[in-house]
């Protein structure tokens, strides 16, 4: 007679691992692989830190020519840049590698993931964890610190909370964009190439004051892809300014809500994509 392996064995003190610990184990295996070469890892973190500053150089150069961009000062735009950089680099660390999906599909590794009793998305997310991206987040924090010194914010407890929550919500929004971008590759072979416009393009755009864009672009990147909630709208709230295109003030505080909606949309898109893959793949 066949013996079913019970989920808990009759052994003294044997702990049955939780579902979470499976994912933790997967991530830890990635981390140890990364830290093997200590010197190389330190260099990588440093490189990411430098990359953050090279990125900032665009804004620096622009403000060498003007003292205001789209109605915002250097410090204010720097703050938008910093909030975006923190959010994006963290999302990149957690989920950025999911753009490897087409490769995994091609090599059969994705099918290998589907054979395991874990969610496919969960496995993809834990398939890597680029700790080095924190280097770029550090740049963001530094610029943020400097920007806060030079901006005139009327601090209230609500604004303080908003400052802390914004990068978190922003990270969630970018994570959702990454997942949605990967899901597209279930339908389009070159889906990730196409979706780069929204992931990396979104990062670029979110770090800038929206007032410089055509209204159509602003609306698209507010209500379709919620990039505005990453930095621009929260910055308006922190500065106590109104959106020139007439968006309501409460919207500027709705980053977390936008993040939740984005996450739900991304999850839906992913499930549909996976369904399509299982139904149509060879």
């Amino acid at each position, binding site marked *: 007679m066949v013996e079913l392996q019970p989920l808990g*064995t009759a052994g003294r003190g*044997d702990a049955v691992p939780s579902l979470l610990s499976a994912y933790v184990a997967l991530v830890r*295996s990635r981390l140890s*692989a990364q830290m093997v070469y200590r010197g190389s890892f330190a260099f990588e973190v440093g490189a990411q830190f430098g990359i953050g500053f090279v990125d900032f150089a665009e804004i620096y150069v622009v403000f060498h020519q003007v003292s205001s961009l789209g109605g915002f000062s250097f410090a204010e735009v720097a703050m938008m840049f910093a909030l975006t950089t923190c959010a994006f680099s963290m999302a990149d660390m957690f989920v950025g590698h999911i753009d490897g999906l087409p490769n995994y599909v091609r090599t059969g590794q994705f099918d290998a993931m589907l054979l*395991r009793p874990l969610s496919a998305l969960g496995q993809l997310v834990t398939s890597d964890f680029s700790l080095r991206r924190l280097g770029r987040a550090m740049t963001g924090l530094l610029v943020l610190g400097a920007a806060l010194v030079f901006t005139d914010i009327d601090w209230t407890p609500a604004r303080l909370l908003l400052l802390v929550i914004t990068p978190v919500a922003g990270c969630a929004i970018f994570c959702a964009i990454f997942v949605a971008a990967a899901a597209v590759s279930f339908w389009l072979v070159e889906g990730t190439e196409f979706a780069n416009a929204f992931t990396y393009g979104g990062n670029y755009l979110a770090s800038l004051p929206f007032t410089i864009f055509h209204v159509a672009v602003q609306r698209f990147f507010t209500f379709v892809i919620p990039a505005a909630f990453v930095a621009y709208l929260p910055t308006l709230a922190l500065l106590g300014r109104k959106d020139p295109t007439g968006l309501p003030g409460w919207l500027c505080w709705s980053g977390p809500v936008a993040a939740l909606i984005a996450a739900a949309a991304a999850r839906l898109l992913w499930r549909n994509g996976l369904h399509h893959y*299982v139904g149509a793949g060879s």
Partner: protein
Amino acid sequence: MIVEVERLRRDFVVRHKTSRFGRSRDVVTAVADVTFGINAGECLGYIGANGAGKSTTVKMLMGIRGPTSGRVQVCGLEPVRERTVLARRVGAVFGQRSQLWWDLPLTDSFRLLGAIHRMPDRAWQARLQECADLLDMHEFLTTPVRQLSLGQRMRGEVTAALLHSPELLLLDEPTIGLDIVSKERLRGFLAEERSERGTTVLLATHDLSDIERLSDRIIVIDHGRLAFDGTLPALVSRVGASRVLVVDLVEPGPPLDDIPNTTLQSVEADGLRQHLAFRAEETSAATVIAAVTARVELRDLAITEPAIEDVVRRLYLSPHQDPQ
């Protein structure tokens, strides 16, 4: 029944360039109208040439591909819908795709799988010990998977599939590319596993010698369609294909063309190696070997099975056209 498959069909669309600017769509049917069942504890050999639809069927049993039409049920579950639940009760080995972690030592793969299948450390370690003993894996457990030979890796893959002691084991071309020794070791291990735990097995392969030792029953699949469902002896006798006994003599000898019920196919190296074909329904391997050793002294011998393409071809030429 552990596996129930009814009128299973799987189509997929293939796009290819017909000219510089044109593209066309073709619908390819990988699996067409297949119906069969597997009872608990049974071992089913699922035989077909490359591209016959074996892998696609196995994928549909695991839920990583969905049927275009038809019904499939494994362990009482619908594979696509309940993929993760099913994955706890089934193990799979794909000969051409690895499920191990490429850049980690082999034992780390088992550690991760233990966590993934939510097995207490002691449980998966005991299981690993068992398999490592039987498959002689101890010397390369700490080697990174990418540095393993194919034979070593396949032993790892089979262990990985059986780590959580599943009710059902699906194997897709597990012996492809392996040398004879490794093949035999793997087959022996699977036979042992079956008799010890009564695991139900589906073995999809194009190599008939794989299933000879293990399967109670076989299904032949050809171009997506079920061509035969019965036992191996029944298939061989119906098809009338020959098995071949290859003998290596201790010293060159005369052609063995007078062994009863055999046909001398070829002689090599002045009679040092000879190929004797015989039909399963006329005589048995044991009888032929006995007759040969009575005549000459043998250094080595091997039996080759008919090629699957040969079997399938003869299947369609044989008097009874429908699978029983």
